[in-house]
């Protein structure tokens, strides 16, 4: 990476976009902004903050990133929050809720001076949400950024968390369907991918080709790929069904690449079912990859002809944008954030069944010009809408809007 991150992004998105960011950030120069989440490593939130914070600093904003720390029971509780907000009925004991509140209290002791002094505080997800009420002398604006699909939360848990969230000055959700009944402004800011990360950066042809020998792939057969956890909502069995329907008409190989899910008994079960279903199909490759196998996934996506994301339920599904960034059309489930990324007949196809997926697989593999055209459109679409620079622009716009609070039109 060059010494200036903005310059590095300018080489991808163009100077006009970066100049737009600089101008938007001018009124925010010197502002003290603190982001708080619960980890610096692992997960999409940490990934995005690793880039957003230095970018904001380069734009003249005094941006900092703090994390809260907790013991095992704290994370057990917040994992349950996460599942409950996504709709799973989860009972959480009072003991765990006490641990949650005590952990926030302990973290507040350390963070309070900085948070109360900040002009804007971004609290990411439920883990640090209780900090707001623990900073009674806060002088700035506090924003709750929810990265989770809360379209149908498990109500008892949401009711508990809502009492911490209502006091914020604004909240941010990724899709309109996730917005909740809250007494403050709720902005819609979709997530983004980072074109410079290992997951998405350009790779040499040698590195891309290395996946053939490494995973015993046939370079002469088209590859279709789904990258996802082994989870029922990602429907790996549906993908296998679609493969079986397609291979009657066209020779091809399928890769199902995902991480192991040691803390998820249901995941183990789905993985076992998947492995059983592929036993007689040597052209289906089930790859269990470690969580940091970003470059391998990047290479697999680039080596594939097209990408599937046949989810039955999906929050946002950034793997779709990651695939599209590599110039691949995506056949995606007609659900959640996939609808925002897969523009039917343009950047791929939206489907509802394995049969629908099979039909589109056959169509694209038989119509290579169309496949290429859709892939190019997909990349252009991500360039304009799902890169971190767009995400940053919307954060800056929100910060300017909140700082001015002048209604529908703010003239700087």
């Amino acid at each position, binding site marked *: 990476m060059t010494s200036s991150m903005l310059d590095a992004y300018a080489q991808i998105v163009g100077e006009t976009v970066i*100049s737009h960011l600089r101008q*938007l950030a001018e009124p925010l120069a010197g502002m003290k902004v603190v982001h708080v989440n619960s980890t610096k490593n692992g997960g999409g939130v940490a990934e995005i903050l690793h880039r957003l914070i230095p970018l904001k600093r380069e734009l003249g904003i005094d941006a900092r990133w703090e994390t809260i720390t907790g013991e095992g029971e704290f994370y057990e509780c917040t994992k349950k929050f996460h599942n409950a907000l996504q709709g799973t009925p989860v009972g959480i004991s009072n003991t765990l809720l006490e641990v949650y509140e005590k952990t926030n209290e302990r973290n507040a002791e350390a963070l309070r001076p900085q948070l109360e002094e900040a002009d804007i505080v971004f609290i990411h997800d439920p883990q640090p949400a209780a900090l707001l009420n623990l900073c009674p002398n806060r002088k700035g604006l506090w924003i709750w950024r929810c990265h989770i699909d809360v*379209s149908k939360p498990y109500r008892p848990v949401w009711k508990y968390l809502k009492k911490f969230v209502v006091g914020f000055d604004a909240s941010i959700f990724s899709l309109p369907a996730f917005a909740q009944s809250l007494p403050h402004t709720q*902005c*819609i800011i979709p997530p983004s991918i980072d074109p410079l990360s290992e997951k998405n950066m350009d790779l040499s042809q040698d590195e891309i080709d290395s996946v053939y020998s490494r995973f015993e792939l046939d370079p002469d057969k088209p590859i279709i790929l789904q990258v996802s956890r082994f989870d029922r909502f990602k429907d790996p069995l549906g993908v296998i069904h679609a493969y079986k329907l397609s291979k009657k008409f066209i020779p091809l190989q399928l890769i199902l690449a995902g991480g192991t899910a040691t803390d998820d008994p249901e995941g183990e079960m789905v993985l076992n079912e998947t492995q059983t279903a592929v036993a007689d199909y040597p052209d289906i490759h089930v790859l269990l990859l470690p969580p940091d196998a970003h470059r391998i996934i990047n290479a697999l996506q680039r080596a594939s002809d097209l990408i599937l994301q046949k989810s039955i339920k999906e929050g946002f599904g950034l793997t779709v944008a990651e695939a599209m960034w590599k110039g691949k059309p995506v056949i995606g489930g007609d659900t959640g954030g996939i609808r*925002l990324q897969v523009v039917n007949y343009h950047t791929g196809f939206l489907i509802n069944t394995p049969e629908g997926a099979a039909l589109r697989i056959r169509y694209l593999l038989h119509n290579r010009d169309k496949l290429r055209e859709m892939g190019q459109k997909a990349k252009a679409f991500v360039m304009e809408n799902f890169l971190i620079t767009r995400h940053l622009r919307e954060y800056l716009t929100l910060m300017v809007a909140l700082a001015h609070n002048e209604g529908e039109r*703010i003239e*700087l």
Partner: protein
Amino acid sequence: MKVVQTVEPFNIKDCALLVIATGKSAQNLRELRDNLITIDPGSIYYHFWGTLLRPRFDDPEYNNDFASWVRHNLHDAILAERLGVVDPSEFNEIDDLRHELIDLIEERLDESELVLWTKVDQQFYFLRSQIVVFDTRKSIHTPEELVDIIPQLSIGSIFYHFIDAKRRTPEKRDDFRAWLSGFDERYADLIEELAAIDPFFSSLTQLRRMLSLIFQNMLGDIS
């Protein structure tokens, strides 16, 4: 011939849009109508004009979110066609546009024996926007400078000067035409070309290309 400068310079501005949930949604046509009666005018503006700043392609099927939702989620092609031809720039006030939409929906409700519904995850979510406008500190003094400057403008600038201006200014026209009309008649043809652009069926990127081509063709000969 050199243009005698009597017109104020054209100050290039830029803008960014913040999308905000209104908390209101509709799952059927009646709910759409009921919400339209009371919804913030900014939401109607957003679902017509703001669509241009959102993910889209160069050949959108409809020029507003209401028509698109009615077609793709309620599967009512007839109403979608009627809503799809509503030209928001014909209405002086957002409330007039609001009444037109309500009239069209009520007409369709009268014609229909059933109220069409969609699935819960395909509801129409009423959104509104906040627009942040900032000065780029760039200005131009002669129309001929537009030839070089248009291709470099951000899509936010294109939106502000070409789309937003039609709502913002009393004359309901884009900033380029407003500025060019301050010069002598030599730009009349150019103004006419600009007036003929239908921005609703282009992405802002494509609109920038179209504007660039027009300025190149029309002003390339003059300069």
